[in-house]
């Protein structure tokens, strides 16, 4: 048997990965604890289980087993979903947020764009994420503060608590109603991409801003605050 010589080339990348994973775990644990949804009902995924019984139905002696093509899995969906429609407005009564939404893509370095700090900026929907109400992690970003306007649109985001409502008005004149599942704070250099932007089995929403103790020397915030929410209903605007 061939066993390779020990390699140490992976160095700090490896531990960074470990840190990311720890955050993912912490976050997932919270998410599960806070999700009040009942266990999802199983769609016909069990159809695959019953497939082999077709074999025994054929009574005629057959030298070769009948080949049953595998049935690809069906990803189950939990809770309501809406068809895609771009968001235009966000309203969060618990922290008195009422903002139109701009659209934000990615910077050339692959990071997500943020609204301008030179003017009183609204919050923005990340166009690389699903529209609010569609299945997946829809992402809305807002500044915590800025030099021009002082307290910015998501200044109070860290006050949000499970059960708080988030209302997003969409271009199709529907209002998507989300309820907060959990609130987390992460160091920016160990941001858990999979927890925030990874696939979900429901129509999810993430509100993101800066957090932690502002560093006067580097003039940066070290952390991000992320609010996790799920679609519960919708109504006409």
């Amino acid at each position, binding site marked *: *048997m061939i*066993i390779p010589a020990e390699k140490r080339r992976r*160095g*700090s*990348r*490896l*531990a960074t*990965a*470990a*840190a990311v*994973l*720890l*955050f*993912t775990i912490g976050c997932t644990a*919270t998410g599960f604890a806070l999700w009040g949804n009942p266990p999802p009902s199983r769609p016909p995924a069990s159809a695959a289980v019953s497939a082999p019984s077709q074999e025994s139905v054929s009574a005629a002696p057959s030298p070769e087993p009948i080949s049953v093509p*595998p049935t*690809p*899995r069906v990803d189950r969906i939990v809770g309501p979903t809406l068809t895609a429609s771009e968001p235009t407005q966000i309203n969060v009564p618990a922290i008195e947020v009422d903002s139109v939404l*701009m*659209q*934000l*893509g*990615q*910077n050339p*370095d692959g*990071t997500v*764009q*943020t609204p*301008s*700090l030179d003017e009183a900026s609204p919050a923005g929907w*990340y*166009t690389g994420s*699903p529209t609010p109400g569609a299945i*997946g992690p829809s*992402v809305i*970003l807002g*500044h*915590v*503060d*800025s030099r021009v306007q002082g307290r*910015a649109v998501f*200044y109070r985001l*860290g006050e949000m608590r499970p059960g708080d409502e988030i209302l997003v008005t969409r271009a199709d004149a529907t209002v998507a109603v989300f309820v907060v599942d959990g*609130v*987390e*704070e992460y*160091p*920016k*250099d160990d*941001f858990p*991409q*999979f927890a925030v932007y*990874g*696939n979900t089995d429901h129509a999810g929403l993430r509100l*993101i801003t*800066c*957090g932690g103790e*502002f560093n006067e020397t580097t*003039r*940066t915030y070290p952390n991000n605050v992320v609010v996790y929410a799920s679609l519960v209903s919708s109504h006409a605007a």
Partner: protein
Amino acid sequence: MNKKTALWCVPAFALGVVVLTGGPAFAATGDASYQGTLDAINGSNGSGTVSVEVSGDQATVTQTVTGLAETFDGKPYPHVQHIHIGAKGECPTTAADTNGDGVISTTEGQPSYGEIGTTLSTSGDTSPAAGTDLTLAGMGANYDYNRTFTLDAATAASLEAGTAVVVVHGLDPATLTKAAQDAKSDLVPSLPLAATSPALCGALSESQANMPDGGVGTGGGSTSSGADMGLLALGAGALTAAGGAVVIRRRLIARG
């Protein structure tokens, strides 16, 4: 998962802002993106994440694995890993252990995840032929894997069909029953069953969001006496855990 870019909440970020006028979420990239979470199987206690970015006939796989068996015969454990294709696109349950030895062998799991389509090797051959070459395997308990290679047609078709599954192999023999410890591998009879049996499994699904890099620069610092950050008990726990990871990183650097 690119961490090389530091992120700042400074006004310089405003320079990069462009207001887009809608369009589909993936307009910027155009090509397909898949992802999966790697969950423990056969009681390995490991975990991980994996993403596959497809651009033309090129695939870039980015994977993070932690908590697997660390050593094998006193050396870093070679965890062979593959994209399995062409079956249900699922990870097997314990019901797949048809011989009842307590281990879902690679063969027993195949009705769920299928045959090897691509070997996620550290260098060279990525075909099924390299599937059990231990010299090309991810090594040790924790590792990052990032490689771009030419994607074969069968794996590409399985990704599109939603039936591609990433499987990482290699169990700690000490966690198995005596009988399973003594059993030979169903793939390579010269190896023990533990060496080739599945340890992590994750079905790949098309990504719902285009994952950006790093954190988010959403603060200008005018209210530097502090925003209303509600402190979270679990958040604090996560910060403590991160401190632990930093310590690990320092130790690794010291060892290197």
